């Protein structure tokens, strides 16, 4: 009987207009965001660039932050994320003077000298521009950087930068945490080779692509399934079928449990179908690279990374609809989703914490993934447990209402 009901619930979900729109959104998102594939290539000695890697060298960290500060100062345009939300800050003259003083202290140069260096760099860019048949191209020039004055300690640097962060109102790139997490340096051949080996051996190629897939779809699956859940949860009420269904023999646990599973299945199914294409592509690439491919890597990532997001958003849809009635769940989840999205707004690779949307917007970078793996497991497990708990409470509330408790003037709603 359980399977029959599960099937009927799946059909009901999939026949709704909401589901059609849901599937369209997923396809559109896939085509626009994951339509093009970056091919993983084995690094060769003497290559122009091997990409960048996060640096744990304090000198590099300070140099990167100081250079960023100079560039922002020149444009008087500073990007901050107070409470996780993007904000562009423009400083007044007095505040810019504070930044000038910090720049002078940390670089050991006057602001005029720094400005001159920056103007010279811009001029260099302009001069390196070459018009070709394919359009404008830039010649190879050294990227702009501000050198640190000798004798500046890390503690002193952090102290000075803290003043800048205060002037900017907090949440800037100049906090100690972000100074550490946003210092990138060019990879050496050896580093690139090591990264490549990890992609081949540990990720079996597919894993690297699956992470990127999960990063993108993690954003969608943290919010979209809530629409399906709310549509299902309010259908009985809208059809005025609450009482007739409530009077049937089936237990509340079985009824809502099956509805929940059906909604989760309906929500994840289009993503599973869409994942087949990149999984096949990754298999092909692995074969070309001579690597041993694991086709089921996508399945593992989907189950471990994306399924908890679906479980959580579907639960939230059912829970808030049962608690407040109507589409309150959508509003609440939209707010939570926005907060989650902006929390990791400035760092898109390796942000996990307790965020509903863990980010890993990079292809490869297996070392970073290894360093956050445990965090990710804890995060996903926590959301899966929270989802099951929320659903258990939903069933409990539904059962109470079904037996006439917590209802107003005898109206079952």
């Amino acid at each position: 009987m359980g399977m029959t009901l599960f099937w009927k619930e799946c059909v009901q979900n999939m026949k709704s207009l909401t589901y059609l729109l849901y599937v369209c959104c997923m396809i559109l998102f896939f085509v626009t965001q994951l339509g093009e594939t970056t091919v993983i290539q084995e690094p060769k000695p003497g290559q122009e660039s091997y990409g960048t890697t996060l640096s744990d060298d304090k000198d590099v960290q300070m140099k990167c932050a100081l250079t960023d500060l100079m560039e922002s100062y020149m444009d008087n345009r500073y990007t901050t994320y107070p409470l996780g939300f993007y904000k562009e800050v423009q400083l007044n003259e007095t505040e810019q003077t504070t930044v000038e003083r910090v720049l002078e202290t940390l670089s050991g140069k006057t602001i005029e000298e720094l400005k001159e260096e920056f103007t010279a760099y811009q001029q260099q860019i302009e001069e390196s521009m070459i018009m070709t048949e394919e359009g404008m191209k830039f010649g190879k020039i050294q990227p702009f950087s501000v050198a640190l004055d000798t004798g500046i300690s890390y503690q002193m640097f952090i102290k000075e930068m803290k003043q800048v962060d205060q002037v900017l109102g907090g949440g800037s790139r100049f906090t100690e945490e972000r100074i550490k997490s946003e210092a990138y340096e060019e990879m050496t051949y050896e580093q690139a080779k090591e990264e490549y080996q990890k992609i081949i051996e540990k990720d079996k190629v597919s894993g690297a692509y699956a992470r990127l897939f999960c990063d993108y779809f993690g954003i969608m699956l943290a919010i979209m399934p809530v629409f399906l859940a709310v549509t299902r949860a309010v259908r009985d009420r809208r059809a005025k079928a609450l009482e007739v269904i409530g009077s049937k023999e089936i237990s509340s646990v079985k009824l809502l449990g099956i509805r929940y599973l059906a909604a989760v299945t309906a929500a994840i199914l289009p993503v599973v179908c869409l994942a087949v294409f990149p999984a096949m592509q990754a298999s092909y690439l692995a074969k070309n690279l001579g690597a041993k491919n694991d086709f089921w890597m996508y399945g593992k990532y989907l189950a471990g990374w994306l399924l908890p997001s679906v479980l959580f958003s579907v639960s939230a849809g059912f829970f808030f609809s049962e608690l407040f009635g109507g589409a309150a769940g959508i509003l609440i989840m939209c707010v939570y989703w926005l907060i989650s999205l902006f929390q990791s707004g400035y760092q898109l690779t390796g942000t996990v914490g307790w965020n509903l949307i863990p980010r890993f917007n990079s292809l490869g970078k297996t070392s970073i993934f290894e360093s956050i793996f445990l965090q990710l497991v804890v995060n996903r497990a926590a959301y899966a447990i929270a989802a099951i708990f929320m659903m258990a409470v939903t069933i409990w509330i539904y059962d109470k209402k079904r037996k006439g408790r917590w209802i107003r003037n005898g109206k079952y709603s």
Partner: protein
Amino acid sequence: MEKRIILKDVCKNYGKKTALDHISLTIENGMFGLLGPNGAGKTTLMKVLTSLQPKTSGEISMCGIPIEKTKKIRSIVGYLPQDFSMYGTMSVYEGMDYLGVLSGLNKKKRKERIPELLKEVNLQEYRNKKIKILSGGMKRRLGIAQALLHDPEVLIVDEPTAGLDPEERVRFRNLLCEIAQNRIVLLSTHIVGDIEATCEEIAILKEGKILYRGTVTQLLTQAEGAIFEAEVSRIELEKVKARYCVTGMISQGRHVQIRFVQEDKTKIPFEGAVRCEPNVEDAYLYLMHQEEMR
């Protein structure tokens, strides 16, 4: 299993408001009518009996099962709520099939029961039509069919004829009588005609209390001698209405043929008034009038 519903001193409160006030009733096999004005507590009683609402106090046993055993109660009760509806996008058959699954019927049983019931309620031609296109009467018939899916011992129907046209209403009453052959059918209504046409055993409910419990014949006997007929002018009508409880009126040009209640059965109320046989509506209104006089 004993086919009997027993209510002992049942009360139901919504906060400070009393919806059911010490109700004691025994309902036997066959049709049983629950009559009362709007707001009398009929729907509350129906919901308590279907375990959709808890009683505040008292005892209820349905065919020997205490009302607290929700799952068992739901397996023996079929319920047609006042405003029955189902997912409009489902076909009649799909809707029945879905509710059949919720009633715990296996595929074989559903395949047998659904066409049988759709035939019984005369909806077999509509089995593939969407529920949303059904008329009010058809929806009620579908409601009855779904309530009978699991062949319940007790069928509870709440205001099933409200809003139906006269033809549908008669058809529906006949259907209920057929169904009541081998089960308890509890019909709640504020339409006296429904009771008159279908029930012998009835209870009359007002403000949560039982005003009357007995047969229709006994109810009629109570009102015997107190119902009069007269032909009055339209000017006189207002005076009569102010003094007596008028139970029926038929307009006849400048005059009106009225039926009314006279408390004192020994006197003739006024010249031209003639004592007549009470019908169920007269008897019901007589009872209500007596209650108001108290």
